[in-house]
């Protein structure tokens, strides 16, 4: 049984409860009063990129639309601009809920596989935690090559002017590919993160059991 089916089974008919227990800040979803201020404030909504703005996602959660929510690309479009947070009359930590739903969808394998931001997000974290610091070049290369080598060259070429400009301005170092910035105590960082994951996993499991 996959993680997804197990969870779906456990929370049968109660997607709101599932979100409350499994998603960071998820217990806030029920407090939304559907005023729509967040949707009206969300930049990605203006660019008509979104299937569902936050208000709608929260309503869908309450209406039990599990698959539609967790497979949506919507929360991946959040730019972390925090516009919604400061405006929500109910003080919902919307940005964090958006990230939380995304993380959950990713965790149980329902998130759209090739959603670019999801990919980038994962990449970023791996990039950052591997050495303790972000390697911007590897990060970009990784993103452009996500669809394989051929399209990677194409994506990379599109950004070529940008990259050359940055190199000239000494703000992107081609040598980063071979080493680059890193922390000294990488071992400590890895150990620390391993522990953190362990703790987090056991807490979530406890919630699921209880």
């Amino acid at each position: 049984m996959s993680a997804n089916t197990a969870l779906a089974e456990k929370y049968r008919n109660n997607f709101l409860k599932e979100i409350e227990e499994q998603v960071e800040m998820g217990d806030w979803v029920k407090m939304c009063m559907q005023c729509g201020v967040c949707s009206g404030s969300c930049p990605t909504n203006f660019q008509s990129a979104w299937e569902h703005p936050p208000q709608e996602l929260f309503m869908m959660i309450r209406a039990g639309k599990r698959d539609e929510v967790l497979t949506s690309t919507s929360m991946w479009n959040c730019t972390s601009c925090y516009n919604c947070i400061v405006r929500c009359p109910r003080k919902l930590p919307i940005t964090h809920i958006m990230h939380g739903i995304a993380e959950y969808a990713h965790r149980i394998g329902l998130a759209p596989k090739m959603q670019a931001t999801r990919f980038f997000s994962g990449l970023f974290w791996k990039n950052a935690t591997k050495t303790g610091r972000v390697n911007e070049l590897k990060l970009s290369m990784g993103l452009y090559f996500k669809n394989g080598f051929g399209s990677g060259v194409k994506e990379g070429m599109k950004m070529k002017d940008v990259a050359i400009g940055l190199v000239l301005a000494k703000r992107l170092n081609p040598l980063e590919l071979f080493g680059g910035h890193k922390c000294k105590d990488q071992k400590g960082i890895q150990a620390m993160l391993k522990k953190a994951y362990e703790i987090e996993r056991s807490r979530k499991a406890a919630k699921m059991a209880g």
Partner: protein
Amino acid sequence: MAKHEYAFYPGCSSQKGASASNYLTSVESMCKTLDVKLTEIPDWNCCGASIGYAEAGELPRHVMNARNFALSEKNLPGQEIVATCAACWLGARETRERLTHSDTLMADTREALKEAGLTINEMPNIRHMVEVLIEDLGFDEMKKHVVRPLEGVKIAGYVGCQTNRPFGVDGESFENPQYLDRMVEMVGAESIPEYEQKVTCCGGALAFSEPEKAQAQIKDIVESAYDHGAEMIVTPCPLCQANVEIYQGQINKTYGTKFNIPVMYYSQLMVVAYGGSAKDAALNGQMIKARRLEEIAAKPVKR
């Protein structure tokens, strides 16, 4: 001894050869003038920035920031942590708030930190560089050092998101913060307080992953600056700076515009106004060169 001392958290983008290295250079020279001493936290690590959320989960994210707190406490006891990057500042502050409000999270964090041989006893204050300037030094103090006012330069103060929300600078409104405009005036330039796009999102990390969406926003930000007759844009955030500056060429291709407006850090303006050279202000770090500033920086200082 310097007048003000802080533990410094430069963040990944400000490292040498990274996208905001010009920011770091100018901050260093600005701090020299203002007698502010920044001591880098030894072996600091990435803040995890908010875009890391998919993989990170809650605890690991906070643990990353907590490690920096612990290192600061161990090596620079009693000093507040200062960040120059909006995302670093935000991430660290968020961790601070969560850990302060949840005993469980705090205990879990300590347990993980133990693996790296570290611990936290006291929560540090997390400050953004502009907070230090405005609150600890004040506009009067900052202005005192201006020896080469940027007269006649019209500058759009682009505050962006993360230095403004959800925490922001104390006493400023989320919808129309004024401090950047005041800083522009402080260096003797002309501000545009009515610049509508001053808190519009630049697209953040989506500029990488979904460029069309981010660029649509950047276009609005730049266009409005032009509409108000700005010669350059100033910002306190590295991601804002990068996004607004480096995609102008692509935007021109997509929309047929002719954008070519320099995007500066407040620290660069200050260094030039304080009499520093183009090199001190890292003006060579601009993809779109700020000719007007370069000219001013070449002028002799009026003392």
